[in-house]
């Protein structure tokens, strides 16, 4: 069976506004198996979000190859869900219209799309809020809308870019548990980008550590904790602590490099 996602020797450069070239990723390779929940951790500015943009087809790589579901990525492909770091729900659509957007874009009739949307709104615990506009919801509720929005099309690949980083700690572990529940009921492969190692380990089967920019995969770790997990409690398990220490040893150096660089560019 082909891997769900495969990046081979991928490099991504951007033109900076001043005309220079900024290398976000250099020679990055990683493989995600079907149904696997992978986390990508690394210091700020290491190109984690760029990796997701490449997998989704929003950005083409400068060098290297990206395969998704066994096919090279040439543009935005079907079967991908993407949860953005910032709020990306449509402010002028109600909760119902937001969630129904995906099925409608895929050619479902307005009626059927709404029917399907109601079901997903209930699944993420927002029943009764169908007619609200996003500004009338709390941050956590908007994240639920975004989650329903990206899951309703039944994606085989789910890309998540620090989706819960703006939430308070309690809401966050609640959302993480719900995400695990919804993921277990699907067969999707997940790439979850975060800078929070605790979140990465408690959610995933595999953790990729990315080096300070230009990013490349430094190492990857299998997380052999049993499922189903309770995110709020798993961090007290001895095995969790072991894994954490192991990965942190690796990540620490990269964080230090990135911090030094920021200090220098701040001083310059």
């Amino acid at each position: 069976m082909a891997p769900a996602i495969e990046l081979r020797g991928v490099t991504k450069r951007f033109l900076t506004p001043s005309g220079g070239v900024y290398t976000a990723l250099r020679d990055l390779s990683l493989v995600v198996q079907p149904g696997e929940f992978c986390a990508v951790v690394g210091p700020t500015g290491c190109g984690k979000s760029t990796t997701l943009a490449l997998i989704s087809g929003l950005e083409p790589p400068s060098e290297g190859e990206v395969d998704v579901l066994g096919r090279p990525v040439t543009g935005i492909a079907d079967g991908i869900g993407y949860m953005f770091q910032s709020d990306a729900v449509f402010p002028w659509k109600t909760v119902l219209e937001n969630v129904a957007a995906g099925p409608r874009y895929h050619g479902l009739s307005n009626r059927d799309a709404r029917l399907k949307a109601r079901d997903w709104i209930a699944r993420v615990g927002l029943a009764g809020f169908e007619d609200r506009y996003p500004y009338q919801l709390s941050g956590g509720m908007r994240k639920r809308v975004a989650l329903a929005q990206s899951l309703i099309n039944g994606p085989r690949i789910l890309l998540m870019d620090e989706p819960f980083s703006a939430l308070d700690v309690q809401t966050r572990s609640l959302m993480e548990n719900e995400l695990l529940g919804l993921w277990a009921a699907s067969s999707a492969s997940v790439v979850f980008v975060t800078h929070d190692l605790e979140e990465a380990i408690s959610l995933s089967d595999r953790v990729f550590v990315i080096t300070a920019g230009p990013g490349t995969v430094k190492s990857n770790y299998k997380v052999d904790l049993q499922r189903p997990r309770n995110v709020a409690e798993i961090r007290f398990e001895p095995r969790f602590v072991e894994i954490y220490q192991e990965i942190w040893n690796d990540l620490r150096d990269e964080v230090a490099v990135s911090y030094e660089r920021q200090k220098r560019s701040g001083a310059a």
Partner: protein
Amino acid sequence: MNVRSAAARLSVPVSAPGRPVVDLAAQRAHDARRRQLTVQGLRVLTAVVWLGSWELTTRLGWVDKFFFAQPSEIAVKLWVWTTQGTELGPLWVQVVTTMEETVGGFVVGSLLGIVMGIALGRNRLLSDVLSPYIKGANAIPRVVVGALFAISLGLDIKSKVATAAILVFFVVFFNAFQGVREVDRNLVANARILGAGNRQLTTEIIIPSALSWIIASLHISFGLALVGAVVGELFGATAGLGELIYSAKNNFDADGVFAGMALLAAIALVAEILITALENRLIRWRPPVAVETRI
């Protein structure tokens, strides 16, 4: 946390040491009413002070009412116009004529502005090619074009509509264009990931997003349409408020000029109210402006 529980929390009577228990919701409604009364009262007071001092200074002869008119005589003038008609015919004909020109120019100009703004905002090549022409055209004092229209389109409604439309067009165009350019890239990316095609992207993401910019420009442009219609009438017309003001000026009738201005201001105010109503209808999704409350 939901809205209901927040409301429940707020309406719980609070007791503080040395302070009576008050119903905060009632207190706030009471404050809002009082503020509303204060605002209305101050508005009336402003009018009384302004018109009163004008009336007084002209009556005392400190200011020559031949040049600066007098509120009471302006009122009389309006009354005469309404009851006996103007030198150009019944007053309502003048009002309707100017309204037709203004609304026509407003509609034509803003539709063209919206369509062109969105088209150029979405198409990089088109906007790069046309931008020097548009910027150049925008630099011309456009009121002057009214003279050209008077020659080429004649002295009937067409030349006034065209003058009003060209004034409106540029304001709406630049706002629509900017609105399209300012669309949140995350929202576009999200829509594309969800499967939106180009047409859906335009109608469901780009246009709603640009709408707050466009509507903001409509507030200004109705006033501009009125300017266009009146200027068009000054270049030659047989009816309309601009023509009425022009003929009053020719008769050295300052009261008539001011009376015409008062009518124009009234039209602009009514239009502003209608546009605000339209705005509230179209942009229901925007959070209401935060009202300052003291608790």
